[in-house]
């Protein structure tokens, strides 16, 4: 009965969403407070119903209810409890339900925390939010029902993909979705503002916490996915420019641009029209990501055409949301009054440059991701776009971005001088030049791009510190807004990530060797001995585990225990890497094919600065959270003293 309750709750949620998407909108345009207030109740009800549905599916998974087709396809009774729970979103239907859940929770959050919003704006935001919700709930109910029953009931399930049975990946989807879906709130605010016909600093301040929260989660989600790839794929790579990764990187780039342009709206009442457009685009890229991943179009254009119902639905939905948003924008944006004026050399100018470069980066990734699909569709020619392409096109645009990122915070609003800003950066500049030269001489032995990139990483950190120290010197630490502290942390963190990427990507060392038990390997000053390889049994897998004792200078240092796991249902082999980190470098070992007589294939990697990639990303998100705690976001925007503008017809 539980699955039917869940199914029923989902249908009710759709009905509520239809009400929420229409009546408050009518209320807002007529000035009818009762209809507007309906939005809040409906948002809470809808969230409650979707939570109920999600809870029902979770219950089916936890109790291994194999009368539900979705549970049979993706679960197994022998799975540990945590993976039974993460199995809920480890499949198509469940992950779409998670999307709908987070969407409705964000709607409820707007309803609860939106007290300081004008009634008409809040009702419009909630209506747009519900309109998106209709799309996802209908998608679930009509093409991807997670509650479908099965008869006869099988004895056990097919099990979850073993690669998913990992703590890192168990929580990757919810966090990433918090980011993806969080951008829906920004989108709703943008559409509501277009309907209202006004965008002002107060609007920017209301939108900021939502954008910032979404951005933080997106950052964390991407980092978690990259970390997972690093330790599970067994050869030390951390970013593959895979379409699925690109699908999450594009909204991140757009959200980063949005975060910065919204500051200009808030502080200077300028860039309004552009910011609204960016909000629409950022969420569209989120939906595009969902479409790319969920429709199967990535596997092949033809696979998509063979099972078109789901893909077509998301495609139409994507076109509707993006096209509708852009059409409304084209119609209403010209009515937005342009605000504050400024000179090209100014904080505003720097933030525009930031937006220009970030959007170019997003466009580059978009082209690289979609081009093979379009070419195949149009001409039938097949072309591959992989890491070497992105290294040649994406990375060069990062250089001016990083160079300008350091200077921007030193520029004043409206008009500024570039000279004094550069003068205050002289120490940072000198240190990064030295760092680049040292890297070139000591590590590469010649001038390399890696050394240059290393210099850029140091530049970002030093410049952020200079700016911070400058503020402290002028005695402004106690009054420094949290947003400024958050900026310093996030900007410096980007430098840390760059250093980690350079270290791991350019300066790693690899050793692949067939080793017999008792044999010794020398690896960059580490002495490794393969003590033994033993067979063991896990809850739902069998494994070979190698024990490698590591000594440095004759003294015991650590023990590495890479495993090779064979999962029973479904049958699949997974490498369990063993990593020893001292936060400056990772010593990374995997166990490959082999047996006692032939010896075992052991892969060793030394990845300098590898942990910095994820520490930096976490720090970057932390900076976002610090900024989120800024006082001005907690107390809300000042109340408008002028009468409200006439609502849009």
């Amino acid at each position, binding site marked *: 009965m539980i699955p039917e309750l869940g199914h029923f709750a989902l249908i009710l949620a759709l009905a509520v969403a239809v009400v929420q998407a229409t009546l408050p909108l009518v209320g807002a345009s007529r000035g009818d407070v009762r209809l507007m207030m309906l939005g809040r109740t409906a948002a809470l009800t809808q969230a409650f119903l979707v939570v109920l549905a999600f809870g029902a599916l979770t219950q089916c998974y936890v109790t291994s209810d194999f009368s539900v087709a979705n549970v049979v396809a993706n679960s197994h009774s022998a799975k540990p409890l945590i993976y039974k729970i993460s199995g809920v979103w*480890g*499949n198509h239907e469940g992950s779409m339900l998670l999307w709908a859940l987070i969407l409705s929770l964000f709607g409820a959050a707007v309803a609860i925390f939106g007290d300081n919003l004008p009634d008409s704006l809040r009702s419009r935001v909630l209506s747009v939010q519900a309109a998106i919700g209709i799309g996802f709930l209908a998608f679930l109910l009509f093409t991807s029902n997670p509650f479908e029953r099965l008869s006869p009931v099988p004895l056990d399930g097919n099990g979850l*993909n073993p*690669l*998913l049975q990992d703590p890192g990946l168990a929580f*990757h*989807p919810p966090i*990433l979705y918090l980011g993806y879906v969080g951008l829906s709130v920004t989108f709703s605010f943008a559409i509501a503002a277009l309907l209202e016909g006004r965008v002002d600093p107060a609007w920017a301040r209301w939108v900021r916490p939502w954008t910032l929260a979404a951005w933080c989660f997106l950052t964390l*989600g991407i980092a978690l*996915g990259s970390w997972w*790839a690093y330790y599970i*794929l*067994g*050869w030390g*790579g951390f970013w*593959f*420019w*895979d*379409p*699925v*990764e690109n699908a*999450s990187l594009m909204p991140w780039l757009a959200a980063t641009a949005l975060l910065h342009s919204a500051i200009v709206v808030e502080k200077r009442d300028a860039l309004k029209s552009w910011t609204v457009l960016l909000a629409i685009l950022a969420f569209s890229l989120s939906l595009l990501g969902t479409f790319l*991943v*969920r429709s199967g179009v*990535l*596997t092949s254009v033809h696979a998509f055409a063979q099972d078109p119902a789901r893909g077509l639905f998301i495609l139409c939905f994507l076109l509707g949301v993006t096209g509708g948003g852009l059409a409304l924008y084209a119609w209403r944006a010209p009515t937005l009054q342009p605000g504050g*004026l400024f*000179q090209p050399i100014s904080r505003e100018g720097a933030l525009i440059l930031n937006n*220009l*470069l970030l*959007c*170019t*980066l997003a*466009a*580059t990734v978009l*082209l*690289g991701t979609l*081009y093979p699909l379009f*070419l195949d569709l149009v*001409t039938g*020619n*097949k*072309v*591959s*776009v*992989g*890491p*070497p*392409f992105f290294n*040649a096109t994406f990375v060069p*645009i990062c250089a001016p971005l990083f160079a300008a990122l350091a200077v921007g915070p030193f520029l004043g609003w409206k008009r500024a001088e570039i000279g004094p800003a550069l003068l205050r950066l002289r120490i940072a500049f000198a240190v990064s030049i030295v760092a680049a030269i040292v890297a070139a001489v000591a590590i590469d032995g010649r001038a390399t791009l890696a050394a240059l990139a290393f210099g850029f990483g140091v530049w970002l950190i030093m410049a952020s510190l200079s700016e911070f120290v400058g503020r402290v010197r002028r005695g402004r630490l106690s009054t420094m807004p949290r947003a400024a502290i958050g900026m310093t942390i996030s900007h410096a963190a980007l430098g840390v990530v760059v250093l980690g990427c350079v270290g791991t990507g350019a300066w790693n060392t690899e050793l*692949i060797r*067939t080793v017999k038990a008792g044999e010794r390997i020398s690896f960059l000053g580490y002495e490794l001995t393969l003590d033994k390889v033993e067979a063991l049994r896990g809850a739902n897998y069998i494994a070979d585990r190698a024990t490698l004792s590591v000594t440095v200078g004759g003294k015991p240092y650590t023990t590495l225990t890479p495993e090779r796991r064979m999962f029973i249902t479904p049958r*699949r*082999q*997974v*490498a369990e890497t063993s990593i020893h980190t001292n936060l400056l470098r990772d010593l990374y070992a*995997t166990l490959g*094919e082999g047996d006692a007589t032939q010896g075992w*294939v052991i892969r060793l990697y030394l990845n300098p600065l590898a942990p910095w990639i994820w520490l930096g990303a976490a720090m970057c998100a932390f900076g976002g959270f610090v900024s989120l705690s800024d006082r001005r976001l907690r107390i809300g925007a000042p109340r408008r003293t002028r009468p409200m503008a006439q609502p849009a017809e």
Partner: protein
Amino acid sequence: MLLLLALFTWPAFAVEPREMLTDPALEARAREIGRTLRCVVCQNQAIDDSSAEVAHDMRRAVRERLVAGDSDAAVYEFMVARYGDYVLLKPPFKAGTLLLWLGGPLVLLIAGAALLVAARRRRAVPIPATEPLSAEEQRRLDALLGR
């Protein structure tokens, strides 16, 4: 994200010791090339990162050509002749990929030019004098400043 998994349907054991060349310089070149060639049955995986049978054969073909004394360019030519442009993870610069290669820079150029034009036009328009405060606003300002 979950579809990431579909991409790695093969257990990720890539280059095997038995296929590696004894000459470290040649092997290093083989690895350099292997990173930029696509395993033709996998999804966006380089042959060096894939443990598909085909990737194994392709790695061996690369090494055979290198041992035979081919230059890197000749190895690429050989692989493209066999598998087409599809095998190159960095697509060649030609008519069909013009938009792919130039799209990003084009966005930058066009948007940059538009911004410059807008900035110049803005400079031509004198910044209008701000409206003076109304009596009500002046009163509130005074109150705020404690005057």
